[in-house]
């Protein structure tokens, strides 16, 4: 999973861009993400349905992976069952 790779959810509209990657399988809405959407959408797992927000960067606890949400959807991103959380960025005053 290299930086710049685009992953699409099989279960919702979510799309992410890999900013920092690792050799892990990313899921969205409980289903594996891939380069393309499957012909038949996967069922959204109620345990992974908090939704994604455009422009948020999602990271895992261990800090291996950083994914930028470029299209929002209903599913939650996860790796090995761990739901990824949006990175809390310190709010900075605009400097340009």
């Amino acid at each position, binding site marked *: 999973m*290299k*930086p*710049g*790779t*685009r992953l699409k959810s099989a279960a919702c509209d979510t799309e992410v*861009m890999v*900013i920092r990657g690792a050799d892990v399988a990313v899921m969205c809405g409980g289903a594996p993400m891939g380069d393309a959407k499957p012909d038949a959408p996967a069922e959204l797992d109620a345990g992974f349905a908090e939704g994604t927000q*455009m*422009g*948020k*960067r999602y990271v895992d606890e261990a800090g291996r992976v950083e994914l*930028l949400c*470029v*299209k929002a959807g209903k599913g939650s991103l996860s790796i090995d069952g761990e739901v990824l959380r949006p990175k809390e*960025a*310190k*709010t*900075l*005053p*605009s*400097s*340009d």
Partner: protein
Amino acid sequence: MNISLLLQMAADADPDRVGLVCDGRRWTYGELLKASKGAAVLFRDSGCSHVGLLDESSEAAVLALFGAAMAGIPYVPLNYRLADPDLAALLGRIAPAFMIGDVERIQRLDGDSGHRLNTRADFVAAAEAAAGDIEVADEAGEGIAVQIFTSGTTSAPKAALLRHANLASYIFGTVEFCSASPDDAVLVSVPPYHIAGIAALLSSVYAMRRIALLPAFEPDAWLSLAASEGVTNTFVVPTMLARIIARMDEGLKPDLSGLRAIAYGGGKMPLELIERALQLFPDTDFTNAYGLTETSSTIALLGPQEHRAAFESDDPDARARLASVGRPLPTIELEIRDEEGRPLPAGERGEIYVRGEQVSGEYRERKALDADGWFPTRDAGWLDGEGYLFLAGRADDVIVRGGENISPSEIEEVLLGHPAIADAAAVAVPSAEWGEAVGIAVVARPEQVAPAEDELRELIRARLRSSRVPERVAVLDVLPYNEMGKLLRREIRALFANG
């Protein structure tokens, strides 16, 4: 991560929001994306190695920046204020380029080095006409997004390289996507060839502000555009702010009630100017940003609350922070080091080193990062006990007299304390005895006479040390600055060398 994604996301989120206003034309984010894709097709099909801009700010700068990114070709905005021989040399270094802007000048200077020449109007029309989708050439963003020639205040211009990853990391670390409301507008008046001009476009697109683009800075036009577009944010260099305030003090008072935030940087802000600005705009947030081309813009900032706290404080240490550039960004590591590269404690002056993903520290000619990824900025400075960074000139400007290092700023501060002196600079002059000695150039205040040479020497001897006493003194009508307010010390040195 290719920086064209920033525009793609803005257009996906709200294609109908106005993203750019320039010369009376309004562009939505959807239109900007479409024309940038068209520009990318033109660039890719040209077979050129660079995309060059020789022009004032306009929509062409936006389309060229994002179009070049999509095509995977470095974008090189050139300084149109350069003298002919200097510009000709830079044109030669980027051939063959897809050139946009002053076609006649390029033809006159460059003969035929294979550039493809396009006027602004022709380029914009062609980009709009060349519809169609383009596969982003460098999705991972490992390549060079922007190449900026440094201003060359101390030496020949270097070609600083900013990779997509550097710029994207800066934007992600400092800007929240779509954080602007549809009414927010930013006035961009810094030239397109300056890193602040690039950063302003990228930040504003990602925040989804409406960008009111001023082709070239002029105070009356700035005030008029700020009022007519209901501008909420802006970035200025100190000389721009001085000229804006001078016009307001002369009675030009457009409605700037919407102006919530003014950021400034790019040169030393005189204390009296920022104090006047804080009085004149009591409800506006001021942010001082410090950064370099090689660091993808801002690496430290002094925020609005810190400005007001310093301005209102009676504590001299706190008040002094108004003259600082604030604290490093959370995503930046910063150290002050001595000449051997050893970290120095707070309060001691040395060279500023920085590290972080946004730091490129890379030139076409060489990479300036050390083995651990630290970039020596060549800026001198020191940190106070609370971590506030104070700048103290360029490390290259240090005068080495008989093995003793002399900072120009210590001499300049003493000179500026003289009531008859409006501006002053200290530089190294050749000395047979000491290797280098001090030369000073001073400018008298209006309707005042500059102090005699002996008086100036005595002032410095009394306040500093005898080694600081200038060997050469020049009284000038004005010191040489570039258009961004940077003092051109090499010109002062040349003045002493030639006479």
